């Protein structure tokens, strides 16, 4: 079989059980990478010696691509930043340990926006990843390499991380499935921190069943991350029932406002009707503080980032400028040459918002508005089981279109940011295509630890449509 790379993980599991060699799957994927990655540029690093560490297990023989901000022992892990060039972690992230134990084959590291700062993959020190549906367009970000590689069948599954939409937004723009789990569902140990109160690792896959399968492997309590929550991990695949009769779907009016692309609006509204046709009850809801989410996020996210990135000083690992005269000079030269433009901008903004005289006006104010945003969701979930919205206001934009206007770039995450501020789980699934043939994504959010509800709703939708089966011709 030459087309094993086109299969999903659950299809490959069946193929392997009926005699297909796992090495044939890896071969097919590696040939595909070799053939098209010079065009897509989804990989920061290809592990040509990829092997299966353990036999058996839930992901036995399945190739998985890892976002480049997740530590893999003794393999390059750079966050697509010059400041971490040549860094190879002396330990595995907890999610990596779990993947290896489950039999997964780690095939390399995915390109990303530098330190996950971006919505387009254009801030990577390796240059941009391209959208496999249209190579002149961005794949979204920051997990753009992960989403593009899944869409282009250069991997079977991938891990991304999501701080303000970095899994869901690229999944939407590349026509694949991306899930940000509830804050605390997946250990962050070994994820190089961007904003510690917002970051979560999650799956990017070809369909909902694969997302359920992969989440089941990586989720769970970890003593090495004290913010991971000690509640049992359900068998997510049991939620894939197609039955959503009586499920209450909230549709917030604030997510269908001026500025949203009409084709996106039409596709999502049509999809809500599909869900209604499957037996769901549609309820109008309001999330009145939605318009404040981007401001709140850019204060909190940048403040936490400026603090987390203080550790990159050239002393212990990564890039060091060797012309320095003294310690302070080493820090300044290393950081000024090692960080790219967007990283500097976020560090400056975050430091400003945390500095004496501005802390109360910006940082503390944002934490209070975060409470209001969280309360909006608590009120909404009294009326519904999940919330359905567009994932992004527009389909994929052109490379270079928003690079000179940071604020316009920030606004492309307007629908995904609220779930991070409130700690909620959210998925993006394919729900249509623009007239130009670009994928459109629908977001489904649920209560904290309501991933089963998300899987139930999204699987029912997916199985009654065929958007997830379309692949770009590349």
């Amino acid at each position, binding site marked *: 079989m030459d087309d094993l790379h086109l299969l999903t993980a659950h299809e490959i599991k069946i193929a392997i059980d009926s005699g297909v060699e796992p090495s044939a799957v890896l071969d097919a994927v590696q040939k595909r990478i070799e053939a098209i990655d010079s065009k897509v540029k989804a990989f920061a690093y290809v592990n040509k010696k990829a092997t299966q560490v353990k036999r058996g297990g839930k992901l036995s023989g399945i190739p998985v691509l890892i976002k480049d901000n997740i530590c893999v022992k003794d393999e390059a892990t750079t966050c697509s930043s010059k400041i971490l060039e*040549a860094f*190879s972690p*002396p*330990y595995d992230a907890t999610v990596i340990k779990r993947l290896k134990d489950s039999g997964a084959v780690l095939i390399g590291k995915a390109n990303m926006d530098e330190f996950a700062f971006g919505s387009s993959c254009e801030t990577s020190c390796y240059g941009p990843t391209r959208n496999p549906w249209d190579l002149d367009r961005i794949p979204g970000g920051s997990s753009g390499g992960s989403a593009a590689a899944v869409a282009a069948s250069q991997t079977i599954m991938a891990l991304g991380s999501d701080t303000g939409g970095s899994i869901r937004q690229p999944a939407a723009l590349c026509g694949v499935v991306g899930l940000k789990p509830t*804050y*605390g569902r997946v250990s962050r140990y070994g994820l190089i921190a961007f904003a510690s*109160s*917002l970051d979560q690792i999650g799956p990017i896959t070809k369909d909902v069943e694969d997302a359920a399968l992969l989440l089941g492997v990586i989720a769970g309590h970890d*003593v090495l991350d*004290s*913010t991971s*929550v000690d509640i049992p991990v359900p068998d997510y695949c049991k939620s894939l029932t197609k039955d959503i009769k009586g499920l209450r779907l909230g549709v917030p009016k604030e997510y269908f406002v001026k500025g949203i692309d009409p084709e996106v609006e039409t596709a999502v509204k049509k999809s809500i009707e599909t869900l209604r046709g499957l037996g769901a009850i549609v309820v109008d809801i309001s999330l009145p*503080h939605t318009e*404040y989410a*981007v*401001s*709140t996020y*850019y*204060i909190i996210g940048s403040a936490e980032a*400026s603090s987390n990135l203080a550790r990159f*000083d050239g*002393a212990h*690992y*990564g*890039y*060091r400028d060797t012309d*320095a005269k*003294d*310690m302070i000079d*080493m820090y*300044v*030269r290393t*950081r*000024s040459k090692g*960080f790219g433009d967007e990283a*500097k*901008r976020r*560090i*400056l*903004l975050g*430091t*400003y918002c945390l*500095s004496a005289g501005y802390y109360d006006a910006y940082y*503390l*104010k*944002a*934490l*209070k*508005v*975060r*409470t*209001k945003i*969280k309360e909006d969701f608590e009120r909404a979930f009294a009326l519904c089981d999940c919330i359905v919205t567009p994932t992004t206001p527009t389909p994929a934009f052109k490379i270079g279109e928003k690079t000179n206007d*940071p*604020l316009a770039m*920030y606004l492309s995450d307007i629908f995904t940011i609220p779930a991070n*501020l*409130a*700690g909620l789980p959210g998925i993006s699934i394919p729900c249509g295509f623009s007239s130009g043939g670009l994928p459109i994504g629908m977001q489904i959010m649920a209560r*904290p630890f309501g991933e089963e509800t998300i899987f139930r709703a999204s699987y029912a939708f997916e199985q009654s449509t065929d958007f997830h089966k379309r692949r770009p011709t590349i």
Partner: protein
Amino acid sequence: MNIDRDTVRRVALLSRLSLADSELDGYCSQMGSILTYISKLNEIDTKDVAPTSHPLSTLKNVYRKDVPKPSLTTAEALQNAPSKEGDFFKVPQVIEKK
């Protein structure tokens, strides 16, 4: 909102970044427009609102028993050092010579 060059220079110093003069104006105008957008938050009355620093309301400080466990070896901890000497990270001189 206007952010002047001195403010950006001061924040850069706090951030241990040095910006070329040619970069300063770009950061001034971009930070100015971002902060203007962000000031939208002042429309909301938050007088009696408690801050949320963390999404998990149930989270408490987690303590572990103070028992020795294996950790990274010295060689592993040093494997990425830009410069080292013996079992130490090597950095430029910190204390001035008399």
